[in-house]
């Protein structure tokens, strides 16, 4: 299947303390803006654009991203990924990421919005070498619907497979299927409409650090529900149920700040538009 709607390849490497692109290739409905250096750290930031404005019936997107040793990249989007009605075939996106030893990727796309009758499947496959660092976050949100229906999309499926030295270490599979499920009930979305997920892999992660993050969470609010837990390797995962994007972004942004300060001794770059 070569008929991609949009293709993006981005290979980066570290050169004299700055991360630069070794190769940038894009075609069809994918584009990247010119690289931005938010601070003096040498970490590069790329914004991904979808000039078509949204994913339609049968659209297929492919991304291949690689970071050579010590390369440091922030990858984000310019705006939310919108999935529109897909009456015949689901929209699909697959991303393959390679992180070499000592590299550091922060992949923080804007929220994914599922509109009425949208079907979407996304697969991220991440290969890491020992000593590579990852911070990944996504937010699933319902699109505006004239009748106020919180779950008018058909199904949104997100799979994250992470391999460390070629061994599977994380298999994260979410499939929200309002066409078949009663989303509001106990055990599913439990009255919330938005779902945020974050995965962090770093050799400095431990239980004390998780306790510290947890102290930052307001456990008495009805606004959101937060769960965090350590992975079988050094790292952790976070899930948040909430009723708007801002609530989830605020939690993720706080965690991101703590991580940057504690582990990298810096303040994270201001990316989002909150």
């Amino acid at each position: 299947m070569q008929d991609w709607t949009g293709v993006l390849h981005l290979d980066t490497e570290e050169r004299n303390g700055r991360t630069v692109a070794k190769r940038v290739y894009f075609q069809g409905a994918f584009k990247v803006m010119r690289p931005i250096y938010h601070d003096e750290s040498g970490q590069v930031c790329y914004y991904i654009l979808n000039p078509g404005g949204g994913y339609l019936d049968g659209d297929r997107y492919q991304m291949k991203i690689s970071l050579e040793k010590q390369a440091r990249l922030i990858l984000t989007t310019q705006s939310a990924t919108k999935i529109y009605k897909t009456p015949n075939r689901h929209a699909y996106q697959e991303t393959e990421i390679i992180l070499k030893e000592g590299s550091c990727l922060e992949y923080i796309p804007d929220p994914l919005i599922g509109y009425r009758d949208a079907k979407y499947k996304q697969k991220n496959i991440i290969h890491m070498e020992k000593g590579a660092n990852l911070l990944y976050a996504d937010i699933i949100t319902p699109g505006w619907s004239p009748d106020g229906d919180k779950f008018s999309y058909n199904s949104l499926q997100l799979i994250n497979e992470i391999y460390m030295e070629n061994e599977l270490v994380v298999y994260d599979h979410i499939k929200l299927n309002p066409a078949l499920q009663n989303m509001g009930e106990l055990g599913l979305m439990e009255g919330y409409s938005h779902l945020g997920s974050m995965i962090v892999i770093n050799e400095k992660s431990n239980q004390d650090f998780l306790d510290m993050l947890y102290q930052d969470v307001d456990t008495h609010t009805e606004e959101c529900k937060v769960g965090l837990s350590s992975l079988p390797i050094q790292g952790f995962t976070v899930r948040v149920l909430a009723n708007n994007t801002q609530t989830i972004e605020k939690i993720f942004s706080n965690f991101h700040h703590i991580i940057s300060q504690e582990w990298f001794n810096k303040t994270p770059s201001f990316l989002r538009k909150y």
Partner: protein
Amino acid sequence: MDRNTLSLLQLCDSNFPTGAFSHSYGLETYIQADKVHDQESLLHWLRVYVTEQLVYSDGLACRLVYEALEKEDYQKVWKLDRMLTMQNLPRETRDGTQMVGDRMLKLVKNLYEIPVLFEYSERIRQNRSFGHPSVVFTIVGHHLGVSVSTVILYYLYSSVLSLVQNAVRAIPLGQTAGQKIIQGFQEVLTEATAKVMAMDEEDFGIVSPGLELSQMQHERVNVRIFMS
């Protein structure tokens, strides 16, 4: 009932000492929050747990392991053992399942001489595999020549038995209420088994957000009688 099915039934007994009585798989979080507090709310949680989570992990694994054993594709069995462990993101639930799997394996090794079971045990000792009750159960079921759909049904049934017993203690509920739930759940179990039989391999590991979040939150629950 034939002899071999009876042999598999032995593993389903809630007195079969696997340590399953120490694990609630997130149910205790709901009990502490008073979201699960009576027969009706327990039945509701149980239905969501079995049909929205267990079928995609343990249930589908029973079928895929069984199919791999039929083809003598042991690499596939080890791959599924790893996938089962890695898709279980809440730490307590992951560790708890591994403990139960390990206990079950140690026990059935004394009851049956099955070469693949010994290899599984050796792989776990070398930290190359993890140990999962659905894999152990299916290896025994396959060895006994029990059909794949019966293996799935019995596995799900035994999971429900220990969960109901745990809930009866924790909520608490009367023993009669517990038995009523088990009886009323039979139809859900046969439907869940049919669902597993019809599943695509790509459906593996789908989790339900609320259930998973409660399994993660269990780490922070104040009063705990369960390890997960």
